[in-house]
């Protein structure tokens, strides 16, 4: 049975959410991703709605951490490999 879950995001989160949704499709190939203007819908044969919620939280947190840490990580790479 296919499971699906819809997750709304607000304008403040939009850039992060859109990017998270795009990467999610690559990192979790068993999950289908539909992206709307203010929500994302995840579908899966294998993952139930609880798990889809956990996947979305992890993907969104991952993208947030990436966006917020990008400058620090770039500086670290330059410090190490210059």
């Amino acid at each position, binding site marked *: 049975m296919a499971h699906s879950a819809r997750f709304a995001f607000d304008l403040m989160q939009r850039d992060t959410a859109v990017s998270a949704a795009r990467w999610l499709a690559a*990192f979790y190939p068993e999950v289908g991703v539909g992206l709307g203007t203010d929500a994302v819908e995840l579908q899966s044969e294998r993952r139930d709605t609880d798990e889809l919620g956990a996947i979305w939280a992890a993907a969104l947190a991952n993208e947030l951490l990436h966006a917020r840490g990008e400058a620090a990580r770039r500086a670290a*790479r330059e410090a190490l490999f210059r």
Partner: protein
Amino acid sequence: MTFLPLRARHLDHGATLWVGDGGGFFRSSPDLARRMLGQALTQQDRAFLRAGGFMIEAGDRLGNAAFLYGLAERAVQAGTLDYLILVPTLRCNLSCSYCQVSRVGERQPGFDWSDATLQAVLDTLDRLPGERIKIEFQGGEPTLRPDLLRAVIARCQRFAERQFVVCSNLQVIDDEILALFDNPELYLSTSLDGDALTHQRHRTGTPMQTDRFFENLRYVIERYGPEKVSALPTIDTLAPPDIDTLIDSYATLGLDSIFLRPINYQGFARKRHRASREQDGSWRSYHERFVRAIIARNWEDRSRVLEESYTSICLRRIFQPGADRHVDLRNPNPLGYDYVVIDHDGVVYPTDEARMLSRSGIVDLALGDVFSGWAGERRDLLNRHASNLDDPGCQRCTYQPFCGRDLVDDLARYGRIDHPRLQTEFCRRHLHLFDFLFRLIYEESPAVRYSLSRWLRLDGTPDGLGPVYA
């Protein structure tokens, strides 16, 4: 500003895996991600993250230094050249359907090192500045030219630490070859695809050649002990062998390590085994069942430890940064510095797969030759893409600290090095493998913990291998 050098991945029901940039990791419930997104981390969360080096507050110089140290510990610094793969001849006395290097017939002239090439190889050895050397003789079948092997080994005696590996099909071992094998610094590597019928179908072709191979394999194991001999199976993923039969084929010979390899999409395999370009879920499922079968055997019979070699390598990459020099899984993966391949004609390649690609006429990845050197623009160009730190997919990947970079594999499969990383076979394979390993790490099973601890070369078996944050 507070910096969290951390990545998140949903692992299983109720479990989010968090991995720091330096490779430290823990598991939590999905609520931690939700608190992070809601900017509602508790004092307890913050204290836990700070203590593990997963949160660095502005002005925390010690925390920042620890973070940089963690990154540096994971990054490969190529040393001086000390590992050479030498191909003294491309001739071979077998004709395997998935031969990766498109070998030539046993009697075909012009595919052995010339005197000038041998001399240039010896001169190269003389110039190496280090105290240790590892040489792997590949082919073709290198034992067709024992004289060349002897010349190289003799020239290496000045190195304090020496290791030689002869990759042989073991079809012929006469007195001259045995005298070579008797060297305690020399190890043997061969292919063993499973039971006699499977091996014959894939490689030896006739019952006579098959019998000869097994006879010779048993003979060298008896003569030298199994620790001198390693064997690898190549698996046709469309018709993989029965798992227990394959393990038995190794275990009965006293061989504990099995490096499970699907057919490499190289050489003759590109035409004859087209499906080997991409592995699907059935291969990954086969690999998991294989590893679990080994875990069950190790638990049942604790007098010996079997392992799937690549799984062990990846496991050690998680827990023991810097402990393994496996060149297919390191980052950055600088090419043409600390190891090179010298082909039968003296041409130098960055990897054996690069040699195969060139032999197949796909792309010429030669860096130069043994006569005039290989440091130059071509090597520099390749090395601009030798890291996983700059790729947007890898930057978001939880397993980036443990993973590597194999641009030659990307070239082999897709003809380019900028194929979206997450769509590459290399990435899919390792994403799945690391998912599998982390599930094992967190599995509540004494049998699993026992095998993982042995593969990590631990003395005992800890109660748990992975930290958990409730």
